[in-house]
């Protein structure tokens, strides 16, 4: 191969590398905020591809999707267009953990997103493989593609997913590949290394896709969607949102499954040590589950459609890196899959990613100006986690170019804040997945109030449209009005009221009560008081839900707000990013090392770094106090 002949292919404000879920949100945010944006992908057909599970949302992840939507992102709107089954999970477990999880028609999701991208002003979508990031004097200048095109860019966002040096493992067989049979990106990793960025290997896996007609559904439990469907996007909420739903199916592994796996364990590259990448604990292969929990007799298997126009079915729960022939044998031991026909085999995939602690909370590289990272390259997993990071990286690339302060959501404001803070502060030893347990303030960070929490912020930075903003403001007003009204409607203890309460299984009242107070009782709902609330106007469901949650959980929400106030105190104590921690006396060696590596932007962030002890935090506080006093003295001089 001769020397690559380069040519100038154009000049952009923001260049996004990758067109997955992170790339799409990043590019759309940037273009919508008025930046001339270029989106490069190795294959236009893989735009907004879902190479693994055919669903969006779930616990924690659903929260992220709602937050992306509240900030003016695209994921929720796009899944509402392509959803083929919808379920609200955890409805019995409290409002904070209700989670919307829907099945996607994968092709439709891709097509709809591609349309949006193609129609977006300020945004060019181009197929091309980036092989080099050009950086001068610690500032990004542009990118070079394999075909010699040099694109000049003020900011570059890397959203390369699992493509970097991707390698697929199926039993003893392994080969270089991106996910789903797409080509891997083999040259970009080296460019990153030349920039001094260390890479590591993570792995993940995907189960087989099988032919619908080869499945005996009569032996399985049918899993229909919810009767009443809720859209993901707040923009679709007041509309009559309806979808045609298709069912999923639940079945189980058998003792034979276990026996087959145990007999063939030595042929798994995960156990032979050939795979060096670290896999996620929450997404184990079937062989992992059987080895780690030998007492469990059967494991769940969900059969889920990949779309309406295909007979490929996704076999959730049976990801595996065993050889293809063993896979087929073990799949056929699952109830209802006795005659199953494989269309795509299960595989494990290993890829390069960065240690996200080299990033600021804006997702910009700590030392290379205007170079941003988002999605699985940061060590996360999941479409939703990727999209959330893409959105934030896109926004901050724009703000950087504008010379504005970065847009940072903290842990008390959004799951997005938890996600990014965890990644850049603690790093991760496995592909990072969002879970509600990761949030300290779960009761206030609900999926139902993401718009109330975030839309105003999105509006301020110019990403949220006027329409969305007004909608949220109106919603806020209606909720507050109704809450006030319920406080003012008072019932007195008489037979009629107490009989009514008795019919709801509630104890009689002895003094006057407002309806607001009555709703606080566990057995009473907002709806159930309709009969004694004649002045009530009919309100949209989303308003009624908010009103009920805000009343019922007022006590708990207040508790959390108090905790958040505490938390914010340390978040407000800012640490300069260029601070050399070895110059601060009193810090433990470990703390100095960690703090110099992570460069937290506040004492709050510092307190979450493992190895930084409460004593170290006291030292930092004392240090800041000293600096403050010095400054004061200098002023007085």
């Amino acid at each position, binding site marked *: 191969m001769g020397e690559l002949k380069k040519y100038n292919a154009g000049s952009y404000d923001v260049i996004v590398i990758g067109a997955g879920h992170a790339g799409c949100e990043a590019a759309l945010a940037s273009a919508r905020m008025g930046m001339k944006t270029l989106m490069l992908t190795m294959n236009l057909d893989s735009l907004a591809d879902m190479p693994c*599970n055919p669903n969006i949302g779930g*616990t*924690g992840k659903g929260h992220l999707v709602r937050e992306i939507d509240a900030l003016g992102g695209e994921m929720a709107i796009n899944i509402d267009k392509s959803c083929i089954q919808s379920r609200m*999970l*955890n409805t*019995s*477990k*409290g*409002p*904070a*953990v209700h*989670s919307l999880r829907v099945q996607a028609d994968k092709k439709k999701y891709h097509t709809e997103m591609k349309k949006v991208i193609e129609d977006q002003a300020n945004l060019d979508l181009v197929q091309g493989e980036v092989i080099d990031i050009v950086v001068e004097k610690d500032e990004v200048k542009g990118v070079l593609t394999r075909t010699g095109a040099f694109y000049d860019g003020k900011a570059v966002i890397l959203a390369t997913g699992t493509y970097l040096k991707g390698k697929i493992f199926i039993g003893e067989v392994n080969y270089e590949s991106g996910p789903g049979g797409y080509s891997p990106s083999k040259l970009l990793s080296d460019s990153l290394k030349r920039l001094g960025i260390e890479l590591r290997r993570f792995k993940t896996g995907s189960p087989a896709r099988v032919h619908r007609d080869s499945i005996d559904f009569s032996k399985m439990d049918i899993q229909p969607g919810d009767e009443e469907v809720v859209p993901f996007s707040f923009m679709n909420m007041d509309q009559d949102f309806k979808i045609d739903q298709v069912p999923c199916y639940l079945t189980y592994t058998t003792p034979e499954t276990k026996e087959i796996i145990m007999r063939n364990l030595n042929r798994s590259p995960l156990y032979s040590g050939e795979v060096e990448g670290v896999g*996620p*604990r*929450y*997404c*184990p292969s079937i062989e992992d*589950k059987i080895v*780690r*929990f030998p007492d*469990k007799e059967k*494991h*769940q298997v*969900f059969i889920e459609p990949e779309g309406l126009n295909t007979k490929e079915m996704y076999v*959730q*729960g049976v990801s595996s890196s065993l050889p293809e022939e063993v896979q087929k044998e073990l799949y056929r031991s699952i109830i209802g899959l006795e005659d199953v026909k494989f269309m795509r085999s299960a595989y494990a995939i290993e890829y390069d990613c960065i240690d996200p602690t080299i990033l600021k909370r804006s997702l910009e590289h700590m030392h290379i100006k205007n170079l941003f990272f988002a999605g699985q390259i940061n060590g996360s997993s999941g479409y939703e986690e990727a999209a959330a990071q893409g959105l934030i990286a896109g926004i901050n690339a724009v703000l950087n170019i504008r010379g504005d302060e970065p847009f940072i959501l903290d842990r008390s404001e959004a799951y997005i804040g938890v996600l990014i803070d965890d990644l850049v502060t*603690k790093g991760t030893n496995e592909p990072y997945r969002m*879970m*509600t*347990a*990761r949030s*300290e303030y*779960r*009761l206030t960070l609900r999926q139902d109030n993401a718009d109330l929490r975030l839309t105003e912020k999105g509006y301020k930075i110019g990403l949220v449209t006027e329409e969305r903003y007004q909608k949220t403001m109106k919603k806020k007003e209606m909720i507050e009005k109704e809450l006030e009204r319920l406080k003012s409607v008072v019932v007195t203890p008489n037979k009629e009221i107490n009989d009514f309460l008795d019919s709801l299984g509630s104890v009689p009242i002895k003094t006057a009560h407002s309806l607001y107070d009555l709703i606080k009782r*566990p057995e009473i709902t907002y709806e159930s008081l309709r009969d004694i609330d004649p002045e009530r106007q009919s309100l949209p469901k989303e308003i009624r839900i908010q009103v009920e949650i805000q009343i019922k*959980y007022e006590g*708990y929400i207040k*508790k*959390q707000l108090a*905790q958040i106030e505490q938390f914010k105190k340390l978040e407000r104590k800012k640490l300069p990013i260029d601070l050399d921690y070895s110059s601060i*006396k*009193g*810090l*433990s060696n470990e*703390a100095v090392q960690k703090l110099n590596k992570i460069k937290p932007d506040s004492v709050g962030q510092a307190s979450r770094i*493992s190895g930084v*002890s*409460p*004593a*170290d935090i*006291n*030292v930092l506080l*004392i240090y800041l106090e000293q600096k403050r006093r010095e400054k004061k003295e200098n002023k007085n001089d």
Partner: protein
Amino acid sequence: MSDTIAAISTSIGEAGIGIVRMSGRESIEIANKIFRGKNVEDLKDAENRKLTYGHIVDPEDDQIVDEVLIACLREPYTYTRENMVEIYCHGGVVAVKKILELALNHGARLAEPGEFTKRAFLNGRLDLAQSEAVIDVIRAKTDKSLQVSLNQLEGSLSAKVKDIMGILLEMLAHINATIDFSEDDLEDLDYEALEKKGLQVENQIKKLLDTADRGKILRDGLNTVILGKPNVGKSSLLNAILRENRAIVTNIPGTTRDIIEEFINIDGIPLKIVDTAGIRETENLVEKIGVDRAREMVNKADLIIAVFDISKPLTEEDHEIIELIKDKDAIILLNKTDLPSHFDANHLKDLLPDKKIINTSIKNNLGVYELEEEIKNMFYSGQLDIESDVVVTNLRHKNQLVKALKNIEDSLEAIRLNLPLDCIEVDVKSCWENLGEISGDTISEDILDKIFSEFCIGK
């Protein structure tokens, strides 16, 4: 923190050996100026952490102050992670004070209370619980309380707290697993099992808290107030107790000039006697300091010794005192049994039916022994086995436990009301965090690790 601090680190007047301690960059240099070694010329050459024999000499007049052993401890492997010097001299007030003075005159400054520990803490040498225990060691008034402090230093409180946190972690892991992995076929979380675990936590926190009051007493001394009208024998009583037990530590001025606190030690029980003797015997205590102050003083007291003069009938002032102490832990002394009685003891018994009454003639030292026995009886009565028990001796720890107790009680209430899991979790987690602040480790990764190790998760 670059300066060098010095302090006397043994109680004055108690021990056979006194120790003067310095910490800071210049400790060894300063020690060099006032030390003449027998075999070692320059302390810079002294072996690390080994005792060197010699004399402390006042360089001004070359007078020998005391014969000492001196140890140079070099950073960072010292208590404070700074250079330290420890000078072991003869006990008693004179030698230690003079040596301290010399150190201060040659570059050190007097350490603030607890400053060595603060440095150790700020230099990352101690975790929160340990450092507070060390502060308690510094403040410990008696041997027995010292033992409790040492126990805590060894981490027995931390260990106990970690046990409780273990139960909470199980609860949290189970709650969160069912929330975050609702589609995995995990066993449904049954509220009864959750309540059972919650009750275990509640009980154990209560047990720890029960020890807290005794723990506080061990550290600060039993807050004891002697009450009585003028000339009833309060001063004689205090003197009698002091004579037998020797006042230790020092006089600390009270909140008014008229009230003085004395620390004494009755067989290992430290007493902080709030001494109203400063109020002239001719003055009415209640009148002098006001009813509110008197009541406040009484309310703060762990123990009241009320003295009545049986040679005179009950006066209005006696009744004021009876009213004040009615609901308090109090011992009644009927004093002046050497004089003819003009006193209706039965009437007093009716007014204060549950109080122990001791007849005394303090002047003749009669009844003082019984009083001391009763004090011991009331507060230990064999319940407190200091050697083996974990005792909460620190106010911050107690406050954390109180918060933790409130939170677990709230969560139990929520469980009984059948509230949703996400609400229950808030209080369980707060409880866990309250306890984590005692031992200094609350890391949320623990919950995830527990989930993944105990539940088969992942679709």
